[in-house]
């Protein structure tokens, strides 16, 4: 991958660094994963002002953060996703560019200890166990972490358990191993195994996503940024303001007012194919969920119930098939999205299996409507809402119902806006169905459905343009 493309993907949310001397098979078989291989991570601890999601014309909608800036990446909060393989030695160089001591910490794996302002520290550690980890600054807890000094480390197993298919774990439970063995081999999960890709349909193997949740408080974080250099903002005062600040009807208190997944809110997460899985029926995907903030979230996914296979380093003995997940501060949870046909699309037996779809009747209100199988939903896929020709100014804003888009949102809904209102710009992502591997005649891709696996967008930024000067 060209460096320019890599940086573009990196800003989008799921380009990742792969650490290790040998590119493992789970990467080299995954030509569409945007990765850069490095032998050493090189972080600078620094700060940034970020333009947050808004359509508010009366303020800048900015939030101050601290961040781990890796030299290969543009500045972003959270720090980059880092992928490696179990047993790899990871070398990290960290320079503290801020005014108070900072650190790099992964529970049970590495602890840099305090790094003085201006100092650089070299550390190394072994990625000892496959799984999902939050790396963060554990000093003045939880202030430094919540201010933005956090990111995700993903450790993949070296091999599948002999005689079985790959899971995200080295020692899966019987139930979780059975689930991954069943993808692509059973009548209820027809399609691909998780470890299987298909270059002819641009489908990567080991489809996996990170949803790193955060809730940022612009006024509290500004207060930390304005604190006298060299002094730690008192942690108890920080927690109290974040969790208990007095209600104000104009919303201008110190409780969190921006809610992000991988640093993005609303449209920027929900329509980003490196955050929101875009796959066909029969292309199961793993989502790794981490909560860096101090708030409870209740994540609800539409269109597929998902299996929660691991929580905080423990593989589930009894993986529940759920549509809503409780995520507490610092929780790390793996979800598996089976990517089955949404089960309540009418079918012959109506028992949740991929039966033949029912045959529709012709609908006199739809021109040219004739009886046809209700899946793939060709009449629905051909619908535009807003209708074709609907405009905002001179700009066409029609949207085709293809791919079939579903949301994932925090149902503890006070996270679903930005700046206290502004619904639709909060903590959300989704899953998008771009086709079906099991349609008669083979794999289908829905009309005009995107198969891109990284954002390709350039141009002027969203938000009131006048504020883009400055910094």
């Amino acid at each position, binding site marked *: 991958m060209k460096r320019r493309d890599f940086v573009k993907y990196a800003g989008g949310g799921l380009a990742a660094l792969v650490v290790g001397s040998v590119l493992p098979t789970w990467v080299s078989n995954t030509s569409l994963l945007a990765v850069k291989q490095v032998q050493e991570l090189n972080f600078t601890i620094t700060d940034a002002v970020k333009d947050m999601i808004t359509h508010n014309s*009366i303020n800048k909608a900015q939030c101050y953060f601290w961040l781990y800036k890796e030299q290969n990446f543009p500045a972003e909060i959270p720090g980059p996703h880092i992928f490696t393989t179990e047993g790899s030695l990871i070398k990290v160089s960290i320079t503290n560019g801020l005014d108070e001591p900072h650190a790099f910490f992964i529970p049970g794996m590495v602890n840099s200890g305090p790094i003085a302002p201006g100092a650089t520290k070299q550390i190394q550690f072994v990625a000892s166990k496959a799984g999902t980890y939050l790396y963060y600054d554990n000093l003045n807890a939880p202030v430094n972490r919540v201010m933005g000094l956090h990111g995700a480390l993903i450790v993949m197993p070296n091999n599948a358990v002999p005689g079985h298919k790959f899971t995200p774990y080295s020692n899966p439970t019987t139930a979780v191993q059975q689930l991954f063995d069943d993808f692509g081999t059973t009548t209820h999960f027809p399609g691909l195994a998780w470890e299987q890709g298909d270059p002819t349909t641009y489908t990567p193997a080991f489809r996996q996503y990170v949803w790193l949740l955060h809730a940022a408080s612009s006024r509290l974080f500004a207060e930390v940024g304005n604190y006298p250099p060299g002094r730690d903002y008192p942690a108890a005062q920080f927690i109290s303001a974040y969790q208990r600040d007095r209600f104000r009807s104009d919303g201008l208190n110190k409780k969190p007012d921006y809610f992000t997944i991988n640093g993005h809110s609303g449209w920027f997460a929900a329509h980003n194919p490196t955050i929101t899985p875009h796959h066909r029926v029969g292309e199961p995907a793993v989502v790794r969920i981490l909560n860096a903030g101090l708030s409870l979230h209740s994540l609800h996914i539409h269109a597929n119930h998902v299996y929660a296979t691991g929580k905080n380093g423990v593989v589930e003995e009894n993986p529940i098939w759920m549509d809503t997940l409780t995520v507490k501060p610092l929780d790390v949870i793996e979800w598996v999205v089976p990517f089955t046909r949404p089960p309540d699309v009418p079918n012959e037996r109506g028992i949740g299996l991929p039966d033949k779809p029912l045959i529709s009747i012709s609908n006199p209100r739809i021109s040219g409507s004739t009886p046809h199988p209700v899946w793939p939903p060709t009449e*629905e896929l051909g619908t535009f809402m807003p209708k074709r020709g609907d405009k905002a100014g001179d700009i066409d804003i029609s949207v085709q119902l293809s791919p079939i888009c579903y949301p994932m949102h925090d149902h503890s809904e006070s996270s679903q806006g930005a700046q206290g209102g502004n619904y639709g710009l909060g903590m959300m992502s989704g899953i998008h169905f771009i086709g079906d591997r099991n349609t008669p005649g083979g794999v289908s891709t829905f009309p005009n459905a995107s198969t891109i696996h990284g954002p390709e967008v350039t*141009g002027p930024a969203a938000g009131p343009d006048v504020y883009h000067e400055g910094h």
Partner: protein
Amino acid sequence: MSFSKPGHHIPRRSIEGHEGTWVKIFNPPKESPPTPELLEPTNPVPAFVAATVPGVTNLTPYTIRPHLMHGTELKMWDGRELNFFLIGDNDTPDAFDGTFPGPTIRVPRGVVFHAQVEGHGQAPHTIHWHGIEPTAINDGVGHSSMEIGDYTYQWQPNHIGSYFYHCHRNTIQHFDFGLYGFLIIEPPDAYDSSDGKNVGGYPRRTAANLSQYPMFPGFIGGNLESGNPHAMTVPYDVEALWVIDDIDSVWRDQAEHAHQTFPEHGDIPGVNDEFHTNDRGKQEFFAFHDFNPDYFVVTGVNFPGRLGSTVSIRPGLTIPASLNSGVAGMQISVNARRNQTILVRLLCAAYTKVKVTFPVDVVVIAVDGRSLGVPPFGRYNKPYTIPAGKPIEMSTAQRMDVLIRSSRSLSSFGQIEYRHHLSDAFLLNGRIPIVIK
């Protein structure tokens, strides 16, 4: 390095070339489209209710006709009136003006379900059938398809269990203000009286795998593919519905209209959208990030107490057949006999977190409308016992179905402990009577 001299500036990303999906995220279109992939509806429940509940009609065959409204004042336990948005039903006089929660909808597995939903020139709404997984246009999320208008939602429930339905427009406000009701998927023959069962009462059956729990009689195993409508189901004698909710009276007072914080797109979307159109330019209320409940309810019944208190609802509360798809006798406070199988359906509709504690052991048979241990999709998990006194943590929108069967008499309470989702501060302990004689 500081707020005023940061090391970096991170600009917003562009939406250029993607204005349509950007606008739709916060300002979805209101449309009245024909139902694509149209099928003849086959849901027998509306005709049953019309035939058995006095005054109820069924004007569109095999179809229910809910509607959504706002601006109703309901009286709380202390006499204070709060602003609610309610779901009503056009065929049910008891529900025409809306109820809190909305009427419970019961549907047999496998039928083609139609809900003809009207807008009334009010703020736009949708119905999302939470846990039901149809195509996007029938999923009822404006941001993925459209807001109504008039539309007939269509889906076929494939999994027996506990669901709910709610408006998915500005969900922060519309769901919180009361636009929701419970939804139950039952075995395929639940409304077929030809075998002599009491279709409008109890016992009824639900999905479970109780092969390891012989204490619950009448469980039938086998497999779903056999076509036996009772495969992998268990009968229950008593059914209780606990919909746990919390209310912030400040939100109700200050955000009184249903489109208070609806942003509108500008003629250059992403650049000159307007956040403040609907607040009449005064920034009257922009605090939907800050929820601090001070009223607490279960299935619409107030826990009569202030913040910090422990209070009980009355024993013997039930839900009328007219608001429960023609089924008489569904309970809120539990009143059963010894050696009866009791099914409690739990829904957390609160934005805070709750802990539910039972005074007896309960067996969890289903979570989020999916029965545990029922193959093929449930072959990876199994039902489990939660011992008496151990709290069950729930967060917003989760459901759990638990079974109770006691050979001993009991007069006690189920307890709902509310804690703030941010601070974990204790808010209220609500008690629901459980009497087994």
